[in-house]
């Protein structure tokens, strides 16, 4: 089973290499006519292991089978396996034809397999290299020798921002199998830019007499903090092993369920990296933050330009280093030149391109100033500066170009208006000081509290006046309201009569008071006042019985006085009647509103 997996894997690798070879052949064939290539897979093998020798032919027809290869120490078979493939390279369709034979090595050593092939009268001498090792499978018993990894940095010390390459090599002894799932952990969490690992392929390599498949992962990053960093990454792989427990399900065999994966932590040596800070000594003022090896160019500056016309200057930084952090020496605005923001329009691994728009307003300008680009070179451990320019330029006057605006985002006046020679003098001392800790009067809560008052006040006045008007417009209501007031003179006269002991006047005035008061209060005519009606009204209003009886007696005496002559009454009796009248009035004022 292990052999089968190995053969599947080997055939897959052979296919990949065959495709690559075909592409190369296709390219060259388009120039040189038919092409041929001889290859052997694997290129490193052990004595007794099967080998495949392949002859790939292209851009021709009716290729003949080559003769059997004869090499001392290698037994080869006839080229009896053939295949064809169509590929499309540079817009041209090409067909390739492959012939293969099986081989097996009988002894160890370095071999060169020769083949001389003739087609259309033209002969090509081809050869392929092969390394054969002695048969030895002792390593397969030690996991640490079967699977291990190496971690390396391109340097053991770098400067801040200097790019650094890390590489991980995962060694798997040939014949063993791991999945593509590789775990990587325990890298420094800070101090470095992002770690982005990418696979850079696999190759066969002989280590201590063993053949390994070496998978390589590479990462380029940069340090952003100075200091010493320990790299002790934890690398884990998924090893494919046979499932020793026999399944009862016959479909398991069919669907390959007899294999399983196991996570294996690979042993790895610790690596220490020192990140050095950039030296402050001799650091240029216009340091671009670049660390590496660079070249700087300024392009696209025309020799002649129309005044006010925008020109786009291109600044290019090429080289190896932290191009993503580079700041280019931009052109600054002055009286002659208005410069706009610089934008980076392109960034590749080896090139950063910036553009800046300039507008030249001064027709007398003869040159644009030189630009200095400074960076730190880790190789020489020093700052370097390159100067480009000055750039001669001819500016043609353009009267109509005074008001051109390159970007609406820029708050710059393009046409000036002369307003005067100087500013106006100081103002006199302020009369009213404001306090920064206090709100303006119209923001204070008191203001908002007072604000509705005029409306409330006006509404209140309107309400009261209207109410008053309404009351005054109803005569009977007015009489009722003013009954006591209007009847009062009669009562006063009765009081005087009581004092002067004049019963006739007293009872006349008392009756006068009663008729006036109750006709107004009960809204009756003066003639309608009678003992019954008064009795009814006062009883209904809840007057005490005793007082009511007294009042009824008073009415009866008054009526007697009016129709049957005035009864003799003492002052005390008259005062008692007055007291009863007062009690009744008080009661009526309270109850008959």
């Amino acid at each position, binding site marked *: 089973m292990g052999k089968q997996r190995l053969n599947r894997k080997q055939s897959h690798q052979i296919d990949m290499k065959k495709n690559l070879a075909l592409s190369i052949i296709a390219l060259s064939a388009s120039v040189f006519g038919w092409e041929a290539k001889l290859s052997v897979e694997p290129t490193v093998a052990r004595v007794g292991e099967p080998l495949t020798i392949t002859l790939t032919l292209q851009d021709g027809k009716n290729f003949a089978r080559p003769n059997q290869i004869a090499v001392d120490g290698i037994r080869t078979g006839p080229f009896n396996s053939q295949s064809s493939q169509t590929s499309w390279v540079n817009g041209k369709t090409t067909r390739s034809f492959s012939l293969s034979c099986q081989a097996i090595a009988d002894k160890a050593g370095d071999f060169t397999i020769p083949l001389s092939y003739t087609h259309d009268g033209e002969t090509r001498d081809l050869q392929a290299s092969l390394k054969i090792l002695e048969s030895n499978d002792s390593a397969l018993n030690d996991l640490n020798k079967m699977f291990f990894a190496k971690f390396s940095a391109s340097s053991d010390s770098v400067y801040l921002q200097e790019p650094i390459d890390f590489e991980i090599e995962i060694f798997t002894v040939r014949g063993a199998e791991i999945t593509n799932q590789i775990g990587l952990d325990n890298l420094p969490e800070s101090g470095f830019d992002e770690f982005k690992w990418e696979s850079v392929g696999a190759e066969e390599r002989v280590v201590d007499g063993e053949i390994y498949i070496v998978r390589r992962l590479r990462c380029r990053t940069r340090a952003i903090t100075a200091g010493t960093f320990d790299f002790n990454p934890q690398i884990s792989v998924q090893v494919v092993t046979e499932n020793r427990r026999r399944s009862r399900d016959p479909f398991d065999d069919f669907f390959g369920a007899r294999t399983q994966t196991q996570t294996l932590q690979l042993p790895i040596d610790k690596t220490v990296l020192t990140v050095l800070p950039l030296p402050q000594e001799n650091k240029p003022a216009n340091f671009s933050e670049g660390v590496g090896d660079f070249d700087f160019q300024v392009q696209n500056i025309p020799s002649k330009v129309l005044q006010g016309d925008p020109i786009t200057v291109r600044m290019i930084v090429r080289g190896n280093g932290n191009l993503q952090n580079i700041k280019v020496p931009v052109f600054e*605005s002055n009286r002659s030149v208005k410069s*706009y*923001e*610089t*934008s*980076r329009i392109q960034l590749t691994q080896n090139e950063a391109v910036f553009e800046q728009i300039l507008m030249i307003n001064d027709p007398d300008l003869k040159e644009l100033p030189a630009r200095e680009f400074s960076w730190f070179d880790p190789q020489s451990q020093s700052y370097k500066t390159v100067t480009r320019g000055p750039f001669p330029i001819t500016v043609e006057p353009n009267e109509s170009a005074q008001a051109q605006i390159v*970007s*609406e*985002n*820029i*708050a*710059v*006046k393009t046409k*000036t*208006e*002369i*307003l*005067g020679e*100087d*500013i*106006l*003098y*100081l*103002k*006199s*001392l*302020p009369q*009213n*000081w*404001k*306090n*920064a*800790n206090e709100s*303006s009067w*119209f923001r204070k809560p008191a203001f908002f509290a007072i*604000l509705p008052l*005029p*409306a409330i006040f*006006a509404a209140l*006045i*309107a309400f009261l*006046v*209207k109410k008053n008007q309404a009351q005054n417009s109803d005569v009977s209501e007015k009489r009722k309201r003013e009954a006591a007031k209007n009847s009062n003179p009669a009562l006063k006269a009765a009081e005087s009569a009581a004092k002067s002991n004049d019963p006739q006047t007293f009872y006349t005035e008392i009756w006068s008071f009663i008729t006036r008061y109750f006709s107004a209060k009960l809204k009756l005519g003066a003639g309608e006042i009678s003992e019954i009606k008064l009795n009814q009204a006062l009883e209904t209003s809840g007057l005490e019985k005793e007082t009511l009886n007294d009042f009824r007696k008073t009415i009866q005496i008054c009526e007697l006085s009016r129709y049957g002559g005035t009864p003799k009454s003492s002052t005390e009796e008259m005062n008692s009647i007055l007291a009863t009248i007062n009690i009744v009035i008080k009661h009526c004022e309270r109850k008959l509103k």
Partner: protein
Amino acid sequence: MKNFLLILALCIFSNASFANDAAQKMAIEAQSFYDAQNYNDAAKTYETLIETGKYAPEIFYNLGNAYFKNGDLPKAVLNYHRAEYFMPNDPELVANLKFAYEKAGLEFADKNLVKKIAFSISEERWVIFAVGGYIFATALILGGVLAPRFRSGLFKTASIPVGIALLASFGILQWESRYKSNEQIFLIDSVTKFAPIETSNEHFSIPAGTIVKTTQKQNSNWIEIELNGETGWVEKSTCLPVAFWR
């Protein structure tokens, strides 16, 4: 109790009066520095005066003059703008502000008609107009209610102060909107970014002395500003608020 209230009122009044006297003295001192062409000390004295919490539009104007003479045009523009909040139509202020813009190479942005009208009068005056219109209109309506014979005439007349109050309210809203926009001035040439982080791409540049509005977005270090319909992020340290008193 009455005596206590009297003493308290006198204390408050005398404290306020003392603070105003001290402010007056500093203003006189600053003016004497200015007259002696020592514009740096004049500006410093005015700034110290404002730091005490006392300010007046005349002081902002004078401070603007001191900065202008000292060659600090962005700060001159800033203080003229601060004075403009209180006396927008002052001809001397308008002349000096335009001149400072001219010198700084900045565009003196012409406002649209609505804003021109709204900002031609200070917010305080708009409030006075609004309150006056409201009281006058209330009185006329009350008169109309109480005197039916003159009701029609009084109600028609009331529409004039009602209109004044509405116009003034609109002016107040415009000023409130201006305050809400939290205008900022850039004291140095700056560049906005697309996002509030140092590594973000640059968006557009802003020359020193430019006044911008802010949106409501900000965090501890960055603030989003708006200029000519474009928004971008700048570090708070690069700009100053114009209306600091609110």
